């Protein structure tokens, strides 16, 4: 399904990273594999450092820290916030929505919309789409899109499939109407038949947490995890991404009526370096136009990886320059999405530590 937005823009991006850094080697002893095999995995996937929260810190802590930073630095005014969208799969509570908690903590006006969206790896583009749609309403002039996930507590420390790559982070993206004409093109697809390729089996209504769901079980590859933990079918996800994402990218180019040479950067979701390099080769773009350095520096933080790839790789430049970007997020759902947009100069594009 295709979406088209006119006269909307991103005016600022802030990413918030936990200050606590963990290295691959710190946790290598947890895995049921020889050191040589784990180091081989590290080299192939590009694992190195990641940022995860200290116990007890949740997404509202990261989001509030970022919002207060923007308010304190006069980069955002409280009364200007007409909508607060939060994309997450690790809310503070099942009810109420975490976006309402954040609104309350900041003391924002009641004449506004708060909305939580349950989306993962494609959640940056889904959030942008929702924000751009809201900006068609006359009373909504400014949307604050928050992407935040703290999934590290949901991953087994003895799971070499998922633990080395998971990272926690949050981002805040400001969306507004644009005075100059803009055109944003987006393509998105979903396949719920693959919904269980990426999953946390227990903790929802179908399978509440219990002593049984907490039992650690060894899988066929020697990883230990329980039903309370995140589980990923790596082979299915790999094949899904390599098969579905390249045609979607070509489709969005066709819709936007551009060629891939006109794109300055391909800012894609960051599952791991291996998958991104394969993807770059398959789409036919040079690997240095598609940064794949987020997992090795910060870990994979679900829907935050795209804004993080922007702040980390071109944060300084984009405050003064204009770029044409192709964004793409793919994963949980299964969902795959792509967007072509013009961006910059931004009022701010920074990352800060919590």
């Amino acid at each position, binding site marked *: 399904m295709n979406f088209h937005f006119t006269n909307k823009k991103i005016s600022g991006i802030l990413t918030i990273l936990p200050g606590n850094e963990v290295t691959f080697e710190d946790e290598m002893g947890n895995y049921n*594999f020889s050191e040589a095999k784990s180091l081989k*995995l590290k080299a192939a*996937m590009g694992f190195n450092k990641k940022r995860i929260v200290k116990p007890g810190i949740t997404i509202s802590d990261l989001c509030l820290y970022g919002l207060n930073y923007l308010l304190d630095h006069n980069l955002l005014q409280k009364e200007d916030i007409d909508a607060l969208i939060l994309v997450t799969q690790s809310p503070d509570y099942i009810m109420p929505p975490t976006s309402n908690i954040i609104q309350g903590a900041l003391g924002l006006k009641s004449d506004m919309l708060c909305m939580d969206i349950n989306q993962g790896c494609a959640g940056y583009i889904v959030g942008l789409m929702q924000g751009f749609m809201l900006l068609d309403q006359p009373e909504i002039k400014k949307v604050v899109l928050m992407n935040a996930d703290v999934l590290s507590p949901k991953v087994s420390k003895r799971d070499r499939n998922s633990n080395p790559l998971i990272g926690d982070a949050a981002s805040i993206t400001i969306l507004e109407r644009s005075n100059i004409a803009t055109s944003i093109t987006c393509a998105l697809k979903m396949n719920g038949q693959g919904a269980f390729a990426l999953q946390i089996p227990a903790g929802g209504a179908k399978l509440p947490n219990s002593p049984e769901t907490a039992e650690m079980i060894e899988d066929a*590859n020697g990883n230990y995890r329980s039903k309370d933990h995140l589980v990923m079918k790596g*082979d299915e996800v*790999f094949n899904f991404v*390599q*098969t579905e994402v390249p045609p979607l990218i070509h489709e969005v180019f066709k819709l936007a009526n551009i060629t891939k040479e006109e794109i300055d950067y391909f800012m894609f979701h960051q599952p791991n370096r291996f998958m991104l390099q*394969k993807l770059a080769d398959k789409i036919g773009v040079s690997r240095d136009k598609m940064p794949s350095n987020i997992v090795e520096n910060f870990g994979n933080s679900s829907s935050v990886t795209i804004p993080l790839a922007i702040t980390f790789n071109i944060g300084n430049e984009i405050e003064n320059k204009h770029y044409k970007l192709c964004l793409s997020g793919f994963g949980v759902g299964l969902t795959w999405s792509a967007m072509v947009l013009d961006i910059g100069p931004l009022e701010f594009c920074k990352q800060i530590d919590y």
Partner: protein
Amino acid sequence: MENFLNQMAELLEVDSVNPQDEIISFDAWDSLTSLSIIAMADDEYSVNISAQEILNAKTIIGLYQFIQSKK
């Protein structure tokens, strides 16, 4: 087939492999090798295979024949 044997030898980190060799019998075998084989099947043969299908194929020749059957 020759080309496939060379690719498998490289992924399994040995000088050469025999068609009858069991895939999981190699020292280098683990879930990363499995993913590397899946990526190779996609790159070289444009075929999607799963981790379970590699295990089901058992031997190098079994996997070769399976990939050919899916082309």
